[in-house]
């Protein structure tokens, strides 16, 4: 079994800020993490490897600093990690990205045939959920999206059974290899790296591929040139929440605090006050 897991390094969206003037995302100082959905797929791939043996290769397309994300995957137990990085990739949309990744995975397959590709359902910074399906289409692989768990894998018959979360229920689907799976959150949890793998990750020499090494010849299909998507405007919606208020009373007694809170609520929401009066009457 040779499984390729596609990952992306993303800014931790829980800590992201939008510049108040330019409306652009302020990446500076925001910690970079492995896209959480990708970790579910990596864990699922590692579980298959635990049962059936084989090899897990992790790949990402991104800037040089994405190395940290790949190293993290090595610490969890991935065998190899490949960073596909080139200035020519800058400005890529999902069409160009899926082309670059599909070509790079085909390059990996020259070394050892790829049986399965795992992707996260989507990234938390782009939210498109298009790259995984794009790769499957380009590589002519069976596609299983929104998978919550891989039930079983039969190496001899080369079939895989998965659970797919769909509207109104769970679908149990079987397909043949090679296939591409995009994973949902929630049914597995990333393992805690062993000390051996921590050492291995710290010392691991990443494979770094530029455009040529990744086997990409047609530059019109990558980067800005290969991206028909145009971002015409970016804006931050107005925040709707109100600032928190610290309520205090002179005595500090819970009773007084509660009374102050209630009177504040009633002053701001007369309807609520009326309703309470009506009910008690």
């Amino acid at each position: 079994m040779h499984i390729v897991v596609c990952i992306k390094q993303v800014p931790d969206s829980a800590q992201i800020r939008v510049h108040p003037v330019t409306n652009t995302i302020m990446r500076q100082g925001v910690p970079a993490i492995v896209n959480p959905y990708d970790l579910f797929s990596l864990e699922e791939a590692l579980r298959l490897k635990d049962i059936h043996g084989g090899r897990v290769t992790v790949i990402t397309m991104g800037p040089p600093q994405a190395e940290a994300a790949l190293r993290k995957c090595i610490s969890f137990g991935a065998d190899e990690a490949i960073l596909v990085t080139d200035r020519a990739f800058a400005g890529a949309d999902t069409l160009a990205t899926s082309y670059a990744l599909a070509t790079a995975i085909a390059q990996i397959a020259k070394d050892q045939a790829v049986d399965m590709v795992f992707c996260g359902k989507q990234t938390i910074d782009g939210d498109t959920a298009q790259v995984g399906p794009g790769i499957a289409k380009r590589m002519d692989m069976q596609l299983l999206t929104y998978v919550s768990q891989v039930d079983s894998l039969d190496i001899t018959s080369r079939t895989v059974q998965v659970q797919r979360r769909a509207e109104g229920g769970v679908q149990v689907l079987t397909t043949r290899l090679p296939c591409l799976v995009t994973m949902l959150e929630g049914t597995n949890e990333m393992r805690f790296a062993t000390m051996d793998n921590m050492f291995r990750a710290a010392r691991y020499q990443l494979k770094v591929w530029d455009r040529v090494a990744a086997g990409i010849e047609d530059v019109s299909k990558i980067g800005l040139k290969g991206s028909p998507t145009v971002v015409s405007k970016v804006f931050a919606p107005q925040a709707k929440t109100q600032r928190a208020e610290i309520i205090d009373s002179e005595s500090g007694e819970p009773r007084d605090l509660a009374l102050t809170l209630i009177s504040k609520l009633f002053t701001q929401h007369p309807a609520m006050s009326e309703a309470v009066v009506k009910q008690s009457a």
Partner: protein
Amino acid sequence: MAEKFDAIVVGAGPSGNAAAYTLAKSGLKVLQLERGEYPGSKNVQGAILYSDALERIIPDFREDAPLERHIIEQRMWVLDDESFVGTHYRSDEFNKPPYNRYTIIRAQFDKWFSQKAQEAGALLLCETTVSDLIMDGDRVVGVQTDRLGGSVHADIVILADGVNSVLARKAGFRPELNPGDVALAVKEIHFMPEETIQSRFNISGESGVVIEMVGKITKGMMGTGFLYTNKESLTIGVGCMLSDFKKQKVSPNQLLEEMKNHPSIKPLIEGGEMKEYAAHLIPEGGYKAIPQIYGEGWMIVGDSGMFVNAVHREGSNLAMTTGRIAAETIIELAEKQKPFSARNLAAYREKLDASFVMKDLKKYRNMPGIFHRNPQFFTTYPELVNQAAHTMIKVDGIDKKTKEREIRNSFTHRRSLFGLMGDAFKMWRAFE
């Protein structure tokens, strides 16, 4: 796999990084273990960087270290409820490179420092907590981490695991923390445009101002407040002894909220956007609280060894210096192929005794006790000094001689003549 290293450094703060860098640079095989997600992710400080201590480790640190502002002005405020009496010291001498002190953001600075240690050859593993020391008889021979297959051996283990130092306590190298020996400090970072900071504090370019505060803001507790200028933000915070918080039943965040509303402080931070809130313990027990700092195969550096000079707000420089000197001691022994026995490591303590670290801490050894027993230094005196200034400055038709008498009387009334003399003596004892 039983990996073995020459040295293991537990922690990637200033002391751990100083030790790991110095050791790795000399060619020793060093493993550094940090429980945080990245170096600096769990570290909190005001924060002021004192150049000297770092310069002795990385002389050209100014070239790429993430520094905020170099400090050209130091303000010391004694606050009453609505006023302050202060001294400001500003010198253009501080505005000429090489600069003596900088404000820094620790999350960025620690990452940089750790990167230097890694470039020097130290191997860093993050998100890895050391749970125990591995002993062979009374000798430390390695560490046990929380990971599967997590034991690693080394000839020497340096504990740079901070004020709480669970390891040192577990191993019995250090007693439980005494609430009277640690301060609890809270701080916030408020963002505002560079120009606003420059105009509010009368500074230009990357020069900066530091305000240290004492008085009514701590509500009678032993502690201080501070306000530092960063490039695009202000850091404001307050810290008091943990035992005092417990006694007075004041919550630290409430204390900081009230301090931010002080009429002399509020206009300085107005309009800023609060982006960060942090709290941490600071070991302020001083000289008398310093535990045994070396033994068979182990050494303690930085906050873990209580190396903080609370009077002068110095800590990270003591951390870096103890880390460096511990490493240098190890390097010297390794060169002579001598074992890291307690007997040989005693040189570490001797070197610290001869350095500013122990000399300064020894100088103020009586201070914590004196201030603990005499809260008037944080309540009555700030009030009296402010009242005196107010009386002298207010023009109200009363002659100056009468005013002087009034001030004198206010002092003797509140503290009595003997009380005043006693306090003066105590102050002299504390600072002698």
